[in-house]
């Protein structure tokens, strides 16, 4: 009896292996257009992401494929040029948990799309809203406010920063900000 029960449970557990992460390759244009509906507070820091993200199941937070595309864009659009491997250079660090213009998805999205004072250029005319969200999702995993179960693929070369889904994640801002 116990053995039958164990076998039944095991076979149910095996079925869980059939779930495969969904790779969304093409977004319907009306949905993609809605991705740009970000509302920010008057000071341009903190705000609400588009409703459509919730309807899509937050793909830019927990889908490894989308995070991987974000990581690709991070290299392609030379984010390393200023932020280095997240450690900061002529631009601020992205992995220390300290955000000058807000750490929530909507703020980071607008940071990439519109740029920010003191040097962050606007990428709104270089990236589609979907790509901007992919990049936002990836930048947020670098900051790692909380440990994540989804992670982009590893670097081909030596990893020069903590892994994107590390735990414990960054908790408090550093004691002294060099800025």
């Amino acid at each position, binding site marked *: 009896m116990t053995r039958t029960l164990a076998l039944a449970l095991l076979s149910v557990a095996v079925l869980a292996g059939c779930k495969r992460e969904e*790779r969304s*390759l*093409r*977004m319907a*244009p009306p949905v*993609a*257009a809605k991705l740009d509906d970000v509302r920010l507070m008057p000071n341009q820091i903190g705000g609400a992401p588009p409703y459509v993200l919730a309807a899509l199941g937050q793909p830019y937070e927990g889908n490894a494929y989308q995070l991987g595309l974000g990581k*690709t864009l991070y290299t*392609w*659009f030379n984010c390393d040029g200023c932020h280095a491997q997240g450690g900061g250079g002529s631009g601020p660090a992205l992995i220390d948990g300290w955000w000058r213009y807000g750490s929530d998805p909507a703020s980071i999205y607008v940071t990439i799309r519109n740029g920010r004072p003191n040097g962050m250029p606007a990428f709104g*005319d*270089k*990236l*589609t809203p*979907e*790509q901007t969200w992919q990049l936002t999702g990836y930048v947020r995993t670098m900051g790692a406010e909380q440990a994540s179960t989804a992670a982009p693929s590893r670097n*081909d070369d030596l990893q020069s920063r903590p892994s994107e889904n590390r735990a414990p994640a960054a908790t408090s801002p550093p004691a002294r900000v060099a800025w």
Partner: protein
Amino acid sequence: MRLRWTSAVLSPLGCAGCVGWQSAMDPQGPQAEHLHRLIWLFTGVAAVIWLLVMLSLALAIWRRRDRSDEPVVPTNAARERRSAVVVFMAVGATVGVIAGLTLASYLATRQVSEASAEPLKIRVQGYQWWWQVSYLDPAAARQITTANEIHIPVGRPVNIELAAADVIHSFWVPNLAGKMDLIPGRDNRLEFTVARPGQYRGQCAEFCGLQHAHMALLVMAESEADFETWQNAQLAPSAAPDSDERRSGRQIVTGKACGACHTVRGTEAAGTIGPDLTHVASRAYIAAGVLPTTRGSLAAWVADPQTIKPGNNMPMVPLTADELRAVSAYLSALK
């Protein structure tokens, strides 16, 4: 009876697949010729051996023991000696055939990989899922970058440096040479000569992801004079737009997301992630052999690349109908 006639008529049709612009059975250069001879040598020898084995098997079945009370091991000393001779001869023949084929294979490989003194140097870099082609002229001003199409002069040896940008790909133009892998971090070389002018199709021969099957390239072998004409046309910057529609098309290509990934020499578009579009309309196909280059196919591609080639790196850039018309008019004039 009827079946036999039908198969006799149909079997030569199977050989029709052996010729054409993508076939190792239709060699168009000395390197491919060596490989072709090797294929036939191996096939011929293996066919003879197969026939001999089948014959002896049939003989053994035909001469089976009639009665079960006959001893399995022959007691006759003369018969035993005869079978020992046969076994030793067969073993000797096997060793001889294997050694001969090894030698033939070694000689063919050596001839195929012979380097020539002054080859035309081309660098081919594999991306998911297209080929970047650069002509490595010693003079920097004479270097050409194009995509998915290699033009080469007939009779001049071509040395191709093979590199990969992301994953392992494999360069295979069956009519001209064997396969050679493109490995990230390790550049390989492949040298071949084309004997006759023509168009030869190649294909990525190492599974490299979702669109591996849609990663084709075209080798255009042409006379030295035609090659020079092509080279000079490619060296020129992109054609200036000659109508209002094309002018606004250029503005969209440089001002919107296109220029972030693509280069159009002579404009501000200078991205290096996607194929160089300076002379995109001079190429026979777009998207690595997926669609023939026409204004319609260019428009279809820009409008919705993820439906035509799902998973490729080009995003669907939101454009209005007028913008799309202008972009396709501009791109189709980039001869």
